[in-house]
């Protein structure tokens, strides 16, 4: 049932307890079945003749795919490999949990997980996009999460690019990268086929650089599209890295804020762990004059925000995860947490602190105000 790679990973993880301390879901629900080793054990039992059941499928969806377990593994095993495949089998066998069902139905109908027609994706941005050239050197890829959940972040990045005099455009009918779909369904043939369509649409713009607002999109473009043969010749750059370069070159001027605060920074999981990028966001925070107070676990050791997708089908768990991270942030003494990922921003604002003790600041919105 599972691929050789998934079997190898599951057999390694089934009797290994070493990474549970970094699993955001298991640490929040306290449920042993939500640990990476439990998912490995169940996968290995299925490979040894047990039936794959709907309740096993439900367990496989209790994961943010944040990669903390893989990052922690000193021998290089990766639970997300068999978890993604288990999700594919859940879809194939009709075992998708009821709470996840609306998301998978939306994917099939709309190509996104948000239950909205693809035609509505860029509706909050259409006025600005309408004033952009059709072809430009740089293509800003907004991504599903920002377009549907935090368009203000996209508008801020567009504002920054404009102020820097960048020659850029945004696709008015931007397709999905497939990142969210791949998390929900696994790396299925459908996801790969969508990648070819997306790669062609991006190449057809003639841009030489694709700037991605969402680290999830950057990760799938950089690390998966090439493996599938859906590569494009354009250079992919994260928005944090692009804006930091514009500030460094002097093309974008940042004025230090008047009300200087102690802030902390939430490293997005895929930006820090998968793309190895930690410095640009910190450089930008310092440019605003804010005093950066690091959380004890930061960089590659960052903790998940609850996750864009988990939040859609398991809001209570996502909320517990976000609150755990906000507790980390508060212990730094900071009065605000800066985020640089649309998923993180939405998670912390929706599920997080309601006491008003800790403000959640979107990095790009903050920079837009300071430029």
């Amino acid at each position, binding site marked *: 049932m599972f691929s050789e790679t998934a079997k190898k990973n599951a*057999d*390694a*993880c*089934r*009797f*290994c*307890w*070493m*990474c*549970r*301390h*970094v699993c955001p879901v*298991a*640490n929040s*629900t*306290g*449920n*042993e*079945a939500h640990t990476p080793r*439990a998912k490995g*054990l*169940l996968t*290995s*039992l299925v490979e*040894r*003749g*047990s039936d794959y*059941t709907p*309740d*096993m499928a*439900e*367990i496989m969806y209790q994961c943010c795919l944040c990669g903390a377990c893989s990052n*922690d*593994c*000193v*021998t290089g*095993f990766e639970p997300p490999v068999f978890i993604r495949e288990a999700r594919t089998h859940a879809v194939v066998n009709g075992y998708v949990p009821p709470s996840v069902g609306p998301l998978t139905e939306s994917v099939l109908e709309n190509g996104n997980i948000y239950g909205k027609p693809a035609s509505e994706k860029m509706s909050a941005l259409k006025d600005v996009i309408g004033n952009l050239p059709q072809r430009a050197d740089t293509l800003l890829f907004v991504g599903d999460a920002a377009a549907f959940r935090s368009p203000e972040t996209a508008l801020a990045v567009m504002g920054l690019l404009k102020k820097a005099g960048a020659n850029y455009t945004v696709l008015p009918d931007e397709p999905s990268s497939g990142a969210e779909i791949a998390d929900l369904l696994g790396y299925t043939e459908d996801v790969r086929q969508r990648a070819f369509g997306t790669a062609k649409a991006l190449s057809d713009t003639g841009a030489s650089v694709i700037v991605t607002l969402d680290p999830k999109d950057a990760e799938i473009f950089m690390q998966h599209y090439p493996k599938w043969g859906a590569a494009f010749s354009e250079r992919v750059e994260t928005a944090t890295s692009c804006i930091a370069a514009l500030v460094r070159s002097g093309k974008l001027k940042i004025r230090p804020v008047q009300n200087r605060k102690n802030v902390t920074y939430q490293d997005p999981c895929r930006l820090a762990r998968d793309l190895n990028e930690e410095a640009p966001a910190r450089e930008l925070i310092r440019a605003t004059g804010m005093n950066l107070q690091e959380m*004890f*676990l930061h960089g590659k050791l960052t903790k998940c925000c609850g996750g864009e997708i988990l939040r859609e089908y398991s809001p*209570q768990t996502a909320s517990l995860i976000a609150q755990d991270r906000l507790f980390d942030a508060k*212990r730094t003494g900071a009065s605000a947490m800066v985020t640089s990922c649309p998923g993180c921003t939405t998670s912390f604002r929706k599920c997080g602190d309601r006491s008003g003790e800790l403000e959640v600041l979107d990095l790009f919105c903050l920079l837009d105000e300071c430029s």
Partner: protein
Amino acid sequence: MDGRGFMFEMVLSELEDVVGRENVSISDGERLVYGVDYFWVGRMWVDKGRLPPKPDYIVRPASAQEVSRLLKIANYYKIPVQTWGGGSGSQGSALPTAGGIVLDTKRMNKLIGIDEYSRIITVETGMVFQRMEWYANERGYSVMHIPSCLTCGTVGGALAHRGIGIMSTKYGKIDDQCMSMEVVLPNGDIINTLPVPKHSAGPDLNQIFIGSEGTLGVMTKASFQLFDLPECRKFRAFLFRDMTSGFAAGRDIMGKIKPSILRLYDESETRSIIKKVVGVEQKGAFMNLAVEGIEKIVDIEMEVIRDICRKYGAEEMGSDYGEKWYKNRITFFYPGYTLDNPQMFGTMDTVASYEKVELIYWAMKHAIEDNFEGVRFIAHSSHWYGWGTMIYDRFIMDSPPEDPEEAIRLHNRIWNAGVRAAMANGGVINDHHGIGLKLSRLMKEQYGPAMQVFEGIKKSLDPNGIMNPYKLGL
């Protein structure tokens, strides 16, 4: 509670009423997960495609008050309760061998507070131990309980089996480090031990519950002493001609200095270690140690240690190995490095006085190697005291029987032989992994008539015998 008659549903709704529907599981998938802990038998069993023992209900309380209500329900219906922390114990102590309820403690995972002035941290016991250590590290302290399962087990799990960390020689075992506890008794009463552990107010309540492996109640909060993070930690390795001179040097060192790490390997383990360090096979007994604290004191202590080791004819092997070992100390427990199926293996750690420890080492080695074909025996001593040390002795069988029932019987015969050899020569049934299901049958042999003290406590606190049946010989 087998089957799904209406009584099953009646109890289920009572449990859900306490912790909420989302914190009770009866699904097959989740029940399977709780049937496998780190115990070799359970792992081998599922590796052969057999199904593990399963609980009827899994409950996840968030507070001592919820634990109290759950235990009252369990007592009324006389349903077994097995407390589960991380499930990373090697003795099968957490396994739901009697069915009934598994009480997973991991929702009780809050930091209660850090009293920096007194150097005390208080947490709920369902917290994974590493997370408590991080809270301490964040403020420049450490609990200094650093076992290989630091990231795997919970605070309650470490207390329940009387655990130990690699720094124990300087900082003590968990039973030395714990200050006080909140415990829910089987009848649902919530009690607290005294605020500090040193007093003259009768026997130490902490020590009744530490090591009780879930048979006497559920520990829900615990406070620990904090230590300042050391200014420096310095390593040094030595090669002795044999175990005898290694034990003698270790004993001498412990009379004068407390290293944080002191590890002496037998000749079998030494051969492979030396090969890794210097690339050639060398005979002898390898010792790796660390001293830590204030640098100028550490330097003097290390000089004293070097003098002692020279006195016993040791060859100095520098500090590289120790530093590398410390950096990679948990790598040995990851897949690909650790012992795993299809091998049969076990760690039969014992502890004894200096007078007896070497005799015990040889007795155990012979009991295993002379009686069981194809079984290897390796050992090291890694936790030292002023009066003696422990032996972390392991047996390894590369090709155990294919048949799982036959494998279990052989596994138990090997364990009986090794542990009985230790006990017959003045050693103790276990040093720091606990008893659990694995050694339960040998507890009466170890304690003799003294076992009635434990049995009396058990009968008094848990008259219905619901708490973790078949474990700890109770």
